[in-house]
């Protein structure tokens, strides 16, 4: 193989590798398009208009849990579109900025489409100019032209096009206007039919310019094919770790390769080191406030370009409806009550609405599906252990998780997304910010906390919206105090059997509901308390300034919300839970069926844990259930029931067999079973407390590790709640017993 073709191959291969690293599946496409833009500019709408339903979601940073990618065909070419997270800039401060920047730089998209809010051109141009510094293959889409018109803003796209040096297309994506022009422009840039000459900073302030040009010529000597040496130099002078690494590894040189098969020389190591040394040396020659100066200039440029291309104030801007709604939703008097009401309705709809489908799924999967599979395996003559392990262990645990988890999530996440789409959630963060400020936390933690009521793993991922690292860690560590969907069923069941039963029958429902709500509110209290403690101990620091855009209220798009929230949030969370429930089901079956000297492992473990359990006002069965059910909170109750039967001799003839989870047939029989297992009111109260205050499920722990990349913080997030739970349960048990004497 000659040198020529091997270079070409390694080049294509190299790009594939960096795309895989960025989370993209290496399937076939002709062109790769990245979609960038500020938050709230209708980027997702443009994405949906381009790809229709030919999109799927991968597990990678983005607005929600995931990043979306899709494919469309245009003039016989397959084009892949990647929806980047919405960011105001590419200066990598937050996770989202880093993700977007890395993709534009290292993913080498054939075209980067920047979606721009026409009503806020200055601010949006800042991002456009930053992207133009990195790549010259850009198309600008001026979206929301209808809103601009309504707000009395006139734009001159051809002027903007000549200032920016890249195609500018106007439109209103929500109504599908301008999409075909956008496709045409993307195609022309991708095929190279249309050459661009992007606006780049030609001249910095004099004392900075000297340094930048010097470093720039050193970069150019080492990497002769890099087109944006001035930008690279500036990033190196800023100490940008990703760009430094790209120089160190030589990847920077690879970035300029195209698919033409042109031979590009690899930069030898000494030259790369020289670039880095020069950057370190030259940094000392810069004025101390050089970042301020560069930033101020960048904004001035964006403003100048914008002022040439738009005329404002044609009609008096009218935001009266929004203002009035805001005065209501964030008012001193009604802000909080309305918020509690709205969130209360969401939770109520989730719990009430999930009842019927949950029991239908349980009947289908647990009752009928399980016995049908049992019959099948009996007729196939499977050995008892294989049949037990697979069907009673693995299958039942999975079936349980699906039937308990799927319906509430399929209701909660779309409702939550609708509120987000409408623009209410930023107002919630705003209302609650003063309380979070006192706890040393970030106002947006209110949103991640709400998300946690759906699923803590999803809540942890959603902390990406918090751009300050300290506050983000606080939000991650305390997310588990939001009582997640998986724990509500335990709370409701135990409250109904033990607490509701204390009240007269007609009040039973209300009393048990009140008990569950108190537990959830206690969780919120513990969240504030532990945020406060964290921000005064291990996560000490200044409260970051908080600024949050309150986007205009927009009518939510029902169908699209339903589709994306089910795909993005529900199915991914469910999938993770199922993956973790499978081994749990296996373990539960095994410990109940593997016997040592006459007793099963489960029985020994329960006996061993019993003293500790009693000390905490619980019992050995509950503790063991929490150990084996760490993968998913949903299976705690079935595990407890199963093991109570296993270790209580007088109940030996009940249930479906050792290690077989079964459905609580009715509240009465479940109650009788638990009473026979020695349960008291104290056990019930402490189980409710412990269900709130214990380690996160393994899905969440894994997610925390993925988000923090730190064993230390993962360990803290795991142990802090269980530590609090042990203390609270212990204290309650002691006081209870003292009071009872």
């Amino acid at each position, binding site marked *: 193989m000659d040198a020529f073709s091997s270079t070409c191959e390694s080049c294509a291969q190299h790009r594939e590798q960096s795309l895989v690293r960025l989370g993209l599946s290496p399937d076939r496409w002709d062109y790769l398009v990245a979609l960038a833009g500020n938050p709230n500019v209708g980027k997702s709408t443009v994405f949906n208009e381009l790809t229709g339903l030919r999109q799927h979601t991968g597990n990678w940073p983005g607005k929600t849990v995931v990043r979306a990618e899709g494919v469309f065909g245009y003039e016989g070419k397959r084009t892949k579109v990647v929806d980047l997270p919405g960011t105001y800039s590419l200066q990598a401060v937050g996770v989202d900025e880093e993700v977007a920047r890395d993709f534009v730089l290292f993913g080498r998209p054939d075209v980067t489409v920047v979606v721009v809010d026409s009503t806020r051109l200055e601010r949006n141009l800042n991002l456009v100019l930053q992207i133009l510094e990195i790549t010259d293959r850009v198309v600008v889409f001026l979206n929301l032209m209808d809103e601009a018109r309504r707000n009395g803003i006139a734009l001159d796209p051809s002027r903007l096009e000549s200032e920016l040096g890249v195609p500018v297309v106007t439109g209103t994506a929500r109504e599908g206007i301008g999409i075909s022009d956008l496709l045409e422009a993307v195609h022309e840039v991708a095929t190279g039919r249309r050459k661009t000459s992007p606006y780049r900073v030609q001249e910095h302030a004099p004392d900075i310019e000297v340094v930048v040009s010097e470093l720039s010529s050193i970069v150019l000597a080492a990497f002769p094919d890099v087109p944006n040496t001035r930008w690279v130099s500036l990033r190196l002078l800023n100490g940008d770790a990703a760009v430094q690494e790209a120089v160190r590894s030589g990847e920077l040189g690879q970035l300029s390769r195209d698919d033409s098969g042109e031979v590009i020389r690899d930069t030898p190591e000494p030259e790369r080191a020289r670039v880095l040394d020069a950057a370190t040396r030259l940094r000392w020659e810069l004025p101390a406030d050089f970042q301020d100066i560069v930033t101020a200039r960048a904004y001035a440029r964006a403003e100048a370009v914008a002022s040439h291309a738009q005329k404002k104030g044609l009609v008096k801007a009218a935001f009266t409806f929004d203002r009035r709604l805001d005065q209501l939703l964030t008012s001193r008097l009604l802000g909080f009550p309305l918020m509690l009401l709205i969130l209360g309705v969401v939770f109520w709809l989730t719990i009430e609405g999930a009842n019927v489908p949950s029991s239908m799924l349980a009947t289908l999967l647990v009752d009928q599906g399980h016995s049908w599979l049992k019959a099948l395996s009996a007729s196939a003559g499977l050995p008892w252990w294989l049949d037990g392990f697979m069907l009673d262990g693995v299958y039942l645990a999975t079936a349980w998780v699906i039937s308990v988890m799927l319906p509430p999530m399929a209701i909660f996440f779309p409702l939550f997304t609708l509120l987000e789409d409408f623009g209410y959630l930023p107002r919630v963060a705003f209302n609650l*910010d003063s309380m979070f400020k006192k706890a040393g936390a970030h106002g947006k933690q209110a949103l991640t906390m709400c998300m946690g009521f759906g699923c803590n793993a999803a809540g942890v991922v959603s902390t990406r919206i918090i751009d300050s690292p300290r506050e983000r860690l606080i939000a991650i560590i305390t997310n588990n105090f939001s009582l997640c969907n998986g724990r509500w069923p335990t709370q409701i069941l135990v409250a109904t059997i033990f607490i509701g039963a204390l009240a007269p029958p007609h009040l039973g429902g209300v009393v048990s509901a009140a008990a569950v709500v108190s537990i959830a509110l206690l969780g919120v209290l513990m969240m504030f308390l532990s945020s406060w403690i964290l921000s005064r101990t291990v996560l000490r620091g200044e409260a970051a300034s908080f600024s*949050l855009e309150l986007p205009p209220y927009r009518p939510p798009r029902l169908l699209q919300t339903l589709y994306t929230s089910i795909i993005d949030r529900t199915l991914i969370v469910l999938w993770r839970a199922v993956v973790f429930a499978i081994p749990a089901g296996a373990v539960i079956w095994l410990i109940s069926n593997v016997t040592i000297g006459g007793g099963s492992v489960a029985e020994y473990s329960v006996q061993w844990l019993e003293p500790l359990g009693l000390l905490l006002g619980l019992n050995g069965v509950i503790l063991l259930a929490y150990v084996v059910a760490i993968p998913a909170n949903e299976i705690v109750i079935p595990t407890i029931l199963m093991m109570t039967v296993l270790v209580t001799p007088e109940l030996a003839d009940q249930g479906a067999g050792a290690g077989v989870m079964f459905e609580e047939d009715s509240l009465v029989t479940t109650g009788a079973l638990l009473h026979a297992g020695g349960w008291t009111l104290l056990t019930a109260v402490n189980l409710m407390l412990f269900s709130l205050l214990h380690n996160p499920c393994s899905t969440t722990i894994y997610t925390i590790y993925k988000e923090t990349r730190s064993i230390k913080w993962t360990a803290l997030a795991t142990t802090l709640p269980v530590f609090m739970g042990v203390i609270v349960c212990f204290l309650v048990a002691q006081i209870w017993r003292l009071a009872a004497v």
Partner: protein
Amino acid sequence: MQLPAVAEQAHIEDLRLGDVPMQQEVELVSIDLPVELAEPLLERGVLPGCRICPVQSSPGGDPVVSVDGSLLALRRETADCLCVRLVSPFQDVG
């Protein structure tokens, strides 16, 4: 961040956005914050020279300001770091 061209004026006119009454439009002179804290504000259109107007306050007393055609929620502490000056209330009409 003290933007160089206007830094001196900030000392003379020590009016902060936090002291401005509701519905009173003012002009931003400078941002008295380190660059990493000022950056998110700049990105959201809070630029020296821009018109800014407090429009309402949160249940906890933090302001919402209208800037560059959109609403931005700030903390009181942040508002106190924004040096502003009064402009004639009728200047921007029409």
